[in-house]
């Protein structure tokens, strides 16, 4: 048995872990700076490249499991350095104005009952609002209960061939529902037009959809062929997605719902592609492919909805 094999089984793990934890510590301390020094970031990246090379050299001499673990650890470090690099870039300033002041700082006494059966368009204050299992329909705010919930949660699940328009164009302005948290899953061939959300939106498993929303945070997982029209003040995130197009939130909707100026809708972070090369999973929508006429008026009947959808979704 060659000496070098011995070295790999006994020494390599120690040397590797020592370098790894050293690097991790240095990344951590670089991170405490308000704006990390780009030179340090480069140094760290070089160190990591060396570590990565030593792992590549050890190829076949390490147990498969260990090798995979080390690979994952390297990937984690890569992500951290990438984030550091992002933070080291000069920042564009933006001021975030709140759409409405939170007037009520007391914690509401929540006596909600768990949602048992998935009822269509069901909501009882303060139970959570759920839109689910619908197809070939135009759904607007008037379909939601008028309980005047101020800061509420909305879940949308299992829609096919629907147009959902929850902007106030379909309701009196003095009766605006303000959403603070929106969770969406399992949509196909659906157009979702949402107003400014005073919080985050989370979307899972969408196929062939169009989403327009203003929010503080946007996360989309496991989705394909989605056009996203966003007004956002943080980095939009996608994960396990493909064929996603991003564009600015349409002006026509902005007139209905005043928005903040700066938007980061093209500063997308693809968590499935944490590298410096551009992500193959999303792109900016070109000017000639953005939707210009939005279905803001209520449409009745299955055929009407289908026809409208075919003009919006390829």
């Amino acid at each position, binding site marked *: 048995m060659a000496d070098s094999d011995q070295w790999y089984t006994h020494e390599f793990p120690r040397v590797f872990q020592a370098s790894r934890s050293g690097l991790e510590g240095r990344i951590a301390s670089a991170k405490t700076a308000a704006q990390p020094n780009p030179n340090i970031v480069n140094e760290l990246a070089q160190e990591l490249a060396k570590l990565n090379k030593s792992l590549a050299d050890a190829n076949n001499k390490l147990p498969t499991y260990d090798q995979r673990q080390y690979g994952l650890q390297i990937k984690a470090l890569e992500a951290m350095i*990438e984030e550091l690099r992002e933070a080291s870039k000069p920042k564009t300033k933006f001021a975030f104005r*709140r759409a409405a002041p939170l007037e009520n700082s007391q914690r509401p006494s*929540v006596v909600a009952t768990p949602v048992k059966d998935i009822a269509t368009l069901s909501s009882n204050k*303060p139970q959570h609002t759920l839109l689910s299992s619908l197809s070939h329909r135009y759904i607007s705010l008037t379909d939601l209960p008028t309980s005047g919930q101020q*800061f509420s*949660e909305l879940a949308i*699940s299992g829609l096919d061939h629907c147009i959902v328009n929850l902007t106030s164009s379909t309701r009196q302005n003095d009766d605006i529902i303000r959403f603070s948290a929106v969770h969406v899953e399992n949509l196909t061939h659906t157009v979702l037009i949402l107003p400014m959300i005073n*919080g985050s939106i989370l979307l899972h498993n969408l196929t062939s959809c169009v989403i327009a929303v203003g929010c*503080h945070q946007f996360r989309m997982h496991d989705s394909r062929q989605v056009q996203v029209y966003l007004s956002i003040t943080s980095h939009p995130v996608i994960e396990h997605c493909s064929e996603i197009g991003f564009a600015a939130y349409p002006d026509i909707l902005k007139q209905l719902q005043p928005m903040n100026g700066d938007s980061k809708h093209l500063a997308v972070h693809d968590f499935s592609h944490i590298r410096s090369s551009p992500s193959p999973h999303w792109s900016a929508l070109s000017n000639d492919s953005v939707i210009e006429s939005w279905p803001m008026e209520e449409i009745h009947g299955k055929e009407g909805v289908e026809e409208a959808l075919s003009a919006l979704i390829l």
Partner: protein
Amino acid sequence: MGLLTIIRKNREKERAMRILFLGLDNAGKTTILKKLNGEDVKGVSPTLGFNIKTFIHGKYTLNIWDVGGQKTLRPYWRNYFEQTDAIVWVVDSCDHLRIQDCKQELHALLTEDRLAGASLLVFANKQDIQGAMDDSQISEALDLRSIRTHHWKIWPCSAMTGDNLNEGLHWMVNDVATRLYYNTTMSLAHAHPQTVDES
């Protein structure tokens, strides 16, 4: 002076605790820490990697690791387990759709050897939102009562209003302190087996 006494003395001098903030993405981990630190909570982006925050809480220094909860990052959580004194598990109480995922991730975490002995603080966050599940509903959904391996406590809270954030941390710090600093050296050895991890 025995080895354990030395370890204990050092610990006592530092009075430092290593705290891990975990939970699904969108739970509000980063926002809670910003709020506790008196920073602006708007404009927080989802965490790509991790953040470290240091707080002084009473006579203790808390070194808090806030790790991103997006699915692709969860396999890396394990890189942060070593020497953890307490886990803060943050839950988005409005996320009815993913509460089962949340339960599974939590219970998987608690089987980790390297986290054995760590205190568990569960924050049922976003209580300011109408339609949020309350702490007893979260407790039930996550099956907290079945947890025997860790000291745990759940607190309803809001990163927006700041309600209960300090109270929750306070419980956690006391729980860890009781274990680390006031107990006999024997139970210290039990709470923190000095394992050498070569992998």
